[in-house]
C-alpha cells in the first residue's frame, strides 16, 4: 500500500519546465540583443525614410518621425535625378526586371539540364568538362571583364540588356550546375534505370521523373539567382549604358549624386525599395522551400 501511495503522489508524466530559468534568461536575452543589433540599421532607415528633410536635419536618427510623410518614397521611385534623367528608380526597376527574369529562367534551365546530363548521361570527358566548369567559378570576375566586353562588342550586343542576360547566365553556370548535379546525384540511380526500361528518353526522364522530384533545389537556385542578379552592380555598370542601368546602379547614382543637398530620406527610401525584391522573393519562396524539403523527406 505504501508503495502504491508513493507511486500515486510521486513525479509523473512530463517534467514541468520553468519559464524564467537562468538558462532561458540567458538564451533569450542574447537572442533579443542580437536581434536588436541587426534590426537597428533597418529601423533607422525606415524611420529616416518617413521623415521630411527639416526633421532629418535635426540629427536625431533614432527618434520616430513626428510627421509621417511618404514623399521621399515617391520621390525616390519617380522623380529623383541621376544625371539628366529625373525619373527616379522606376526606370532602373524595370531594367532590373528585364535583366533578372530572363537571366534567372535561362540559367536555371540550362544548369539543371547540365547537372542532369552530367550525372545520369555520363559521356566520355564528362568529368573533365565538369572540373573545368567548376574551375571557372574560382577565377575572379574582374579578370574576365575586358575580354567579355570585347566578345560582346564583336557579337554586336554590347550595351544591350540581352548581352547582360547572357553574361549573367554564363556566370551563374558553374555554381548552379554544381548545385543541380549534386542534388540529382542524390536521386537513386535505380529510378533512372527504371525509367529507361520503361522507355523514357533523355527529356522524358528529365521532365517526368527528375523535375517533379526536384522542386526544393529549383527554389534554392531561384533564390540564389534572383538575389545574385538583382544585387549585381559590377556587370550592370560595365555591360550596359546609362539608359539601361539596373536598379542598383541607379541607386548608387542617386545616393552619390554630388549636386545639391544630400537628401538622406530619399536615399533611405531608394535603398529600401531596391532591397525589397530579393526580400520578397526570399519570404515567399522560403516557405515553399521548407515545404519542398518536407515533401521529399519520405523515401520513395
Amino acid at each position, binding site marked *: 500500500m505504501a508503495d502504491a501511495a508513493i507511486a500515486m503522489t510521486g513525479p509523473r508524466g512530463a517534467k514541468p519546465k520553468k519559464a524564467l530559468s537562468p538558462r532561458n534568461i540567458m538564451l533569450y536575452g542574447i537572442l533579443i540583443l542580437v536581434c536588436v543589433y541587426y534590426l537597428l540599421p533597418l529601423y533607422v532607415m525606415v524611420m529616416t525614410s518617413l521623415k521630411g528633410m527639416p526633421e532629418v536635419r535635426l540629427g536625431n536618427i533614432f527618434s520616430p518621425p513626428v510627421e509621417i510623410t511618404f514623399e521621399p518614397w515617391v520621390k525616390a521611385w519617380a522623380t529623383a535625378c541621376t544625371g539628366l534623367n529625373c525619373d527616379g528608380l522606376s526606370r532602373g526597376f524595370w531594367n532590373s526586371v528585364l535583366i533578372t527574369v530572363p537571366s534567372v529562367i535561362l540559367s536555371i534551365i540550362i544548369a539543371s539540364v547540365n547537372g542532369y546530363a552530367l550525372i545520369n548521361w555520363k559521356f566520355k570527358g564528362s568529368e573533365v568538362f565538369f572540373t573545368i566548369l567548376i574551375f571557372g567559378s574560382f577565377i575572379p570576375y574582374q579578370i574576365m571583364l575586358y575580354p567579355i566586353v570585347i566578345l560582346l562588342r564583336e557579337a554586336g550586343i554590347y550595351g544591350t540588356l540581352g548581352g547582360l542576360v547572357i553574361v549573367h547566365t554564363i556566370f551563374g553556370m558553374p555554381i548552379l550546375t554544381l548545385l543541380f548535379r549534386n542534388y540529382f546525384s542524390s536521386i537513386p540511380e535505380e*529510378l533512372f534505370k*527504371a525509367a529507361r526500361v*520503361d*522507355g523514357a528518353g533523355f527529356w522524358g526522364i528529365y521532365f517526368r521523373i527528375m523535375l517533379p522530384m526536384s522542386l526544393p533545389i529549383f527554389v534554392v537556385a531561384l533564390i540564389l539567382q534572383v538575389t545574385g542578379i538583382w544585387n549585381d552592380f559590377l556587370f550592370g555598370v560595365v555591360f550596359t549604358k546609362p539608359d539601361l542601368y539596373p536598379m542598383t546602379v541607379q541607386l548608387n547614382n542617386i545616393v552619390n549624386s554630388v549636386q545639391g543637398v544630400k537628401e538622406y530620406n530619399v536615399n533611405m527610401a531608394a535603398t529600401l525599395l531596391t532591397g525589397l525584391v530579393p526580400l520578397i522573393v526570399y519570404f515567399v519562396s522560403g516557405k515553399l522551400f521548407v515545404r519542398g524539403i518536407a515533401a521529399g523527406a519520405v523515401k520513395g
Partner: protein
Amino acid sequence: MGNSIEVKDLTLNFGSVSVLKNMNLDVKEGEFVVLLGPSGCGKSTLLNCLAGLLDITDGQIWIKGKNVTWAEPSERGIGMVFQSYALYPQMTVRGNLSFGLKNAKVPQPEIDKRIARAAEILQIQPLLDRKPAALSGGQRQRVAIGRALVRDVDVFLFDEPLSNLDAKLRSELRVEIKRLHNQLGNTMVYVTHDQIEALTLADRIAVMKGGVIQQLAGPQEIYNRPSNLFVAGFIGSPSMNFLSGKTVDGGKTFVFGDHRIDLAGYDGGAVLERDQAILGVRPEHVTVSSSAPAGPSIPAVVEIDENLGADSLLWLKAGTKDICVRVPVEGRLPAGTKVHLGLDIAKASLFDTKTEQRI
C-alpha cells in the same frame, strides 16, 4: 523450347578493369535462372548488360532470337525489378504502372486492361490510387513487380528484389515470385547473394565469382556436386567442412592426419594418387557416434552446441581441425563429449588442391 536469352562471349571493361570476362550463358524459354555470388562478382553488372543499361565492350546479347546488343532497354522485351523498388514517388501506383505503357503509346483501354490484370495477380487493387510513400516495403515491391508485369514482356530481370525486406516478408514474397513464375511461365533472371533464394527459386543457378560463371547447374547438382572449391564453400550454411590431406592406394583411400578414410562409393571421376587433395563434406553428411565404429573413424571433441530449433549444429574439434556437424535435436551433445565421426563418402566432394576443381 528454344533459348530465350543467349549471351555470347560477353566482355565488359570499365577502363582497364575487366568486370565480365568472355561470358557465355543460355537461358531456356520459361526458365528461372539465378545469378548468385558474393558482392562484386559481376552478377548485377551482367543483369544491367542484359537490360541494356550498360554498354558492353564486346560480345552479343540475343533475346528471343533477336540480336539486342545495341538496342535500347525499352526495345528488348524485358521488365526489370530493382532492389530499392525504384517507384516514381510523385506518381500514384496506377501512374507507376502506366508510365512505361504511355511511353510506348499503348492505347488507354489496353493500359486499363493490363493494369487491372496485374493488380489482380499481385493483389494490389486497393492500392492503385496511393502514392508509393503510403505503401509498405512489401507492397512497394509488389508494385515494382507489377510494373514489369504490365509491360507484357517475355523476360523478367530481378536485381536483388528482396534484399530490402525483412526476413518474414522476404520468405513470403519469395514464394510469391515462385508462384508468379509458375503462373506466367516467363523467363526470369534473378540476381541475389542469398543462397536460400537461389536454391528455392532457381531452375538453374549460375554461381559467379570475379566476372566468371563458376558453375551453371540445377540447385541439387550445385549443392551435391560443386564444381570447385569456391562453389562448395559458397553454397551451404554453415559451410562445407574441408579436410586437407592426400590420396593413397591408387586413390582408394584419403589420408587426413593420422586417419585413413576409405573412398569407396565416391561419386566423381578417377581419384588417382595425389600428394595433395581436399575432401569436402557437408555438416549433414557427417555422422556422430559415441562409441568407435568398426571401421576407421575420426575422434573428436564437442566444443559448442548450437540449437537451431529444428536441428542442431555441433562444432567439434578433431585434433586441430574444426568440424561442423548438423544433427537432429535429439542428437545434441554437451560440450566436452568425446565422439567419433564418420563421413558419408557418397555425398562428399574431393578437390584437387592446385586447380581447386572437383575430381
